[in-house]
């Protein structure tokens, strides 16, 4: 949303994302519910709000060039989703700076919040507008997106509440991938699709990076990371522990988890 001043524009041309010494903290109110009533009660008793600070990302520095596919692996709560939201411009950094060059499309954890009462087609329009397309652009693309999602038997015109989670995921993914983003951020977006859709979406993503578009993937399906990415990073408790070839990173990560290369971690979840 913010455009850059002149000094800030100095980013090497080949970079899509530059992250400099990024830290993100959440302040969590551990006390009661956040209501006006409680606030007044507390103030009258002279109590302070007890806050816990969670440092979700700590001093992370990373460059992502155009046309690369970056995978992020790490345990639950490592700060992967937080990092993705910061790159998308949703969460402001507490410290440090993120510079992004290009149009971003996101498909983040928890989905896009489709309106369950509306049809898939209506939600495609709404989703496209939410991610910054104009009305003409999305109207031109609606058919293409619906075709890509390839829902069975006219489900695209049924209310989204009647969808299976895979069907929901297909529509969400189609919107994100078909708005021709320069930078595509996917946070566990491929988990619900079946084998054939996964094949199709992998192909589409390879097309995107052949056009020098950049993709960042967060996934617990380590095989996906191995298959798609050309670089991977491993995050643990908010810091980047390692960066390198996906196979090496996945190996290290699995050793750390002490589960060995269990087949289950390699199954596409």
């Amino acid at each position: 949303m913010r455009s850059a001043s002149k000094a800030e524009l100095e980013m090497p041309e080949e970079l899509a994302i530059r992250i400099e010494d990024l830290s993100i903290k959440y302040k969590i109110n551990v006390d009661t519910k956040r209501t006006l009533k409680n606030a007044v009660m507390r103030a009258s008793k002279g109590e302070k709000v007890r806050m816990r600070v969670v440092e979700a990302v700590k001093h992370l520095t990373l460059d992502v060039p155009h046309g690369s596919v970056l995978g992020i692996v790490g345990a639950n709560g490592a700060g992967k989703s937080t990092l993705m939201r910061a790159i998308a411009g949703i969460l402001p950094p507490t410290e440090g700076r993120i510079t992004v060059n290009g149009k971003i499309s996101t498909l983040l954890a928890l989905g896009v919040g489709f309106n369950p009462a509306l049809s898939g087609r209506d939600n495609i329009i709404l989703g496209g507008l939410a991610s910054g397309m104009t009305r003409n652009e999305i109207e031109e693309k609606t058919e293409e997106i619906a075709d890509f999602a390839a829902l069975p038997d006219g489900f695209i015109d049924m209310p989204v509440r009647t969808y299976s989670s895979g069907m929901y995921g297909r529509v969400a993914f189609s919107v994100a991938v078909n708005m021709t983003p320069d930078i595509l951020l996917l946070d566990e977006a491929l988990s619900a699709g079946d084998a054939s859709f996964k094949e199709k979406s992998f192909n589409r993503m390879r097309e995107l990076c052949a056009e020098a578009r950049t993709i960042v993937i967060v996934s617990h399906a380590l095989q996906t990371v191995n298959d798609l990415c050309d670089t991977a990073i491993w995050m643990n408790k908010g810091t980047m522990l390692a960066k390198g070839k996906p196979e090496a990173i996945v190996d290290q990560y699995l050793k750390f988890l002490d589960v060995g290369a269990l087949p289950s971690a390699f199954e596409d979840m």
Partner: protein
Amino acid sequence: MPTPRENFAPRIQVFAPHKASLPPLGPYLREFWRRRAFAIELSRFADKAEYLDSKLGKVWLVMNPLLLAMVYFLLVTVIRGSASKTSGLSTLAHILIELFTFYFASNCINGGALSITAGGRLILNQAFPRALLPLSSTISAFWQFLPTIPVYIFVVIIGKVFFPHTEIPGLGFNYLWAPFIILCVGMTGFGLALIFATMNVYFRDTNKLLSYMTRIWLYSSPVLWRPEILHGWQKIFLYVNPLGPTLSATSSVWISGKSPTLYELLGCLFWAIFAILIGGYFFVSRERDFAVRI
């Protein structure tokens, strides 16, 4: 390594800690304007989702304020004692048009106040100027308000047939002011919605407070009473109320059949602009916090 595409339009964005409380306003407003279609469609689709299988629901939207106006009319006439036949109709017309206008503002505010906290996943997963959500509620409130105008006109026409000596004006140029007044009501409502939407992120019981406030606000606004009953210094009472000038101007136009007074117009403009400036500042300077607190 492939090189960036030919038509690659560099669109560099920098995300940094916000020490300054407001983001650069130029880009924010440009982005806000560029995405206005989102707010419009969001309101249209919310409406579609709500009344998908009940066309009657829409009728209720008009019936509800109409019935309420009838109840208030009975109350007012009973309290005031027997009204003469001619002033009875104008009292009813006054309550109708004022209540409809008041409801427009209060729907803007109530809907807008909840729009951020109800926007959950949208806020967590998409980056866009957050003020679009309250704007969408304001647009919804406007579409709810619009059909109440023909209802008013219908009631007045029927009334005029039965009571031809009523003071309610017929066709005239005074009505040309109505769109301006409605715009001011919408702007004031949107500005106040921005304030309460922000408050609701921090204090989740804000909407409860709001429902009490709305009631008190209704009684202290010239809805159930005519603005003409205030004289001299008492008029301050009218102008400190964000809806005072607009409701008073509404009464001038629709009931007295006059153009609004200069003071009324200035008051309308003042509150519309003031509410948007204050609400906008309050909201925009905090909106980057919303994703963390939702």
